[in-house]
């Protein structure tokens, strides 16, 4: 019974991880950089959800799309102001791109954490639950009502996003730019627009993830740090830039942590993913499903 319980719980956590990691993976696919401020999109979403629901007293079901919208806007602004230099001079990308991306996104992460810490304060806000049912019996196991509903919402969003990326016109443009930016632009695709869409979508998804989890991990200024680190593990595990890869890797990581926390060590459960990350970076940097992109 414990095994099944751990499996389900790990799976549910994995769904939340996936919601966040997809955006990071799409950003890597299209800009070939890691967004070190991804956790702060999550944090912004957690606050947008919690504060609107608590202060304005509106239904959490309205706060949720609002959090998504806030994430979209923040992502779009960040892309316009900070990510443009990464591709506006495509032909003269130097070796300095990575370092630029690290500095700017890491600085942005510090900036947002401390700004929120100053404006909202360091206190934790518990997000309202989406449903009032405290426990739902799922076959033989019990799961918290909010967690189950939130996981269903997250899973539906993931399915929609995956389908949009795969089949829609915009989604195909994004895929084309991820494969070959120059080629896509020669084929008439507005690569700047594709990058803007990806970045704001990634911001929105991370924000929804933060909103859905605000009931479980209370909103604090640095609440996004750990989910972001999990997402880094996931995108490497699943292959940078691969959406199906990140979804599968999220589930694997969620289940692994769930079991590892019981059977190996609860104290060190957060380090498992990081060990996996280092091992993968060393021996299979293209991840489980990614294409080989490492320069040697």
């Amino acid at each position, binding site marked *: 019974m414990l095994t099944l319980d751990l499996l389900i719980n790990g799976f549910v956590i994995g769904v939340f991880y996936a919601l966040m990691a997809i955006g990071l993976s799409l950003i*890597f696919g299209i800009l*070939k*950089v*890691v967004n*070190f401020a991804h956790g702060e999109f999550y944090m912004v979403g957690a606050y947008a959800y919690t504060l609107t629901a608590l202060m304005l007293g509106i239904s959490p079901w309205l706060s949720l799309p609002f959090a998504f919208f806030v994430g979209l806007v923040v992502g779009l602004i960040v892309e316009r*102001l*900070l990510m*443009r*230099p990464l591709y*506006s*001079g495509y*032909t*003269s990308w*130097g*070796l*300095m*791109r*990575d*370092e*630029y*991306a*690290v*500095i*700017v996104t*890491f*600085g*942005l*992460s*510090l*900036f947002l*954490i*401390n*700004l929120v810490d*100053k404006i909202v304060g360091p206190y934790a806000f518990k997000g309202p639950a989406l449903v009032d049912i405290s426990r739902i019996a799922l076959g033989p196991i019990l799961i918290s009502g909010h967690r189950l509903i939130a996981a269903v919402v997250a899973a539906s969003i993931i399915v929609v996003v995956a389908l949009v990326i795969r089949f829609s016109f915009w989604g195909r443009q994004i895929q084309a730019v991820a494969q070959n930016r120059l080629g896509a632009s020669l084929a008439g695709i507005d690569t700047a627009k594709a990058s803007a869409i990806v970045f704001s979508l990634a911001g929105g998804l991370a924000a929804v993830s933060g909103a859905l989890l605000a009931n479980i991990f209370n909103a604090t200024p640095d609440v996004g*740090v750990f989910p972001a*680190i999990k997402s*880094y*593990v996931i995108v*490497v595990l699943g292959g*940078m830039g691969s959406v199906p890869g990140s979804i599968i890797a999220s589930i694997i990581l969620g289940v692994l942590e769930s079991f590892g926390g019981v059977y190996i060590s609860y*104290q*060190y459960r*957060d*380090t498992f993913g*990081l*060990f996996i*990350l*280092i091992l993968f*970076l*060393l021996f299979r*940097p293209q991840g489980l499903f990614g294409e080989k992109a*490492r*320069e*040697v």
Partner: protein
Amino acid sequence: MVANKSSTSVRQRVEFFVSLGILALIAVLPTMVTNAYWQGVVIVSMYFAMLAAAWNLLAGYTGQFSLAPATFGMIGAYVTGLLSYYYGATAIVGIPAAVIVAGVIGLSLGRIVMRLRGPYLALTTLSFAEIMRLVISNSIDITRGDLGLNVPGIFQGRLAYYYMMLAVLVAIQIGLYFLLRSRGGLYLRAIRDDEIAAASRGVKIVWWKTYAFTLSAAISGLAGALYGHFAQFISPELGLLSQSGIIISMVVIGGLGTLVGPIGGAFLVYVTSEFLRDFGGYQLVVFAFLVIIFGRFFREGLWGLLRAAFGERRSLPPVVQAASE
């Protein structure tokens, strides 16, 4: 040897002497600042300056963007702290041990990541930093976890610490200057500018990268150990990502890839942040904002701005190109 007349070597000499000038100002500062609190602030700035100089060697001169600059400081502090806690070892034993342990860990990390580049390197060092911090903070039986560890002091008076830190910082700065002037410094910069080209000209990439990682880690370990003995209390918070963020901010604001940048940046950022603390504590917001602005528009930091004001050429290629190019 490298031709002494080259513009790089002239520029480095200018940077070196300006940084020594800053340190000379620091040396006479206690005659004016007699307040123990502010002397302590300058001592902590010197700790940050050492970490910043070490990170700059790795990121600014070798192009290896590690996200673990604070971690090696934490490792150094814990090596000497644990040695004295369990074995009663004095600082004479603890500090060299901290340098060696940090250096060896840096060496192994360097060997591990030597083939990784860009985002992969940043991610590996980031997870290394978090693993080290989580291990120290969760190994409560050994390190007392988040409770922190008391470390014995070395001296009685604050000024003794002040001049010890200053002497070490000057020694580090002189060492870095001669390293960068030497053939090795040229190799490091060659790796930063174009690794493949450097390899094709016979630079032993693996050896020099590992060398930079080891040296940077050893300097950070030294800084951490000295800080531990000064503060007499250490905790896993020394290795927080935000600490690494502060160190990176110092270098970026001061000037990445320059000898002055880390020194000037560390004093400027830390001392100003202590001033700003009285005005609502917006210091980290301001500095993070400055990092974004400098990273986005002024890639050589304040030192680059100063040099531009005196009409000199940029030394790093600009990353920002016009959209139409």
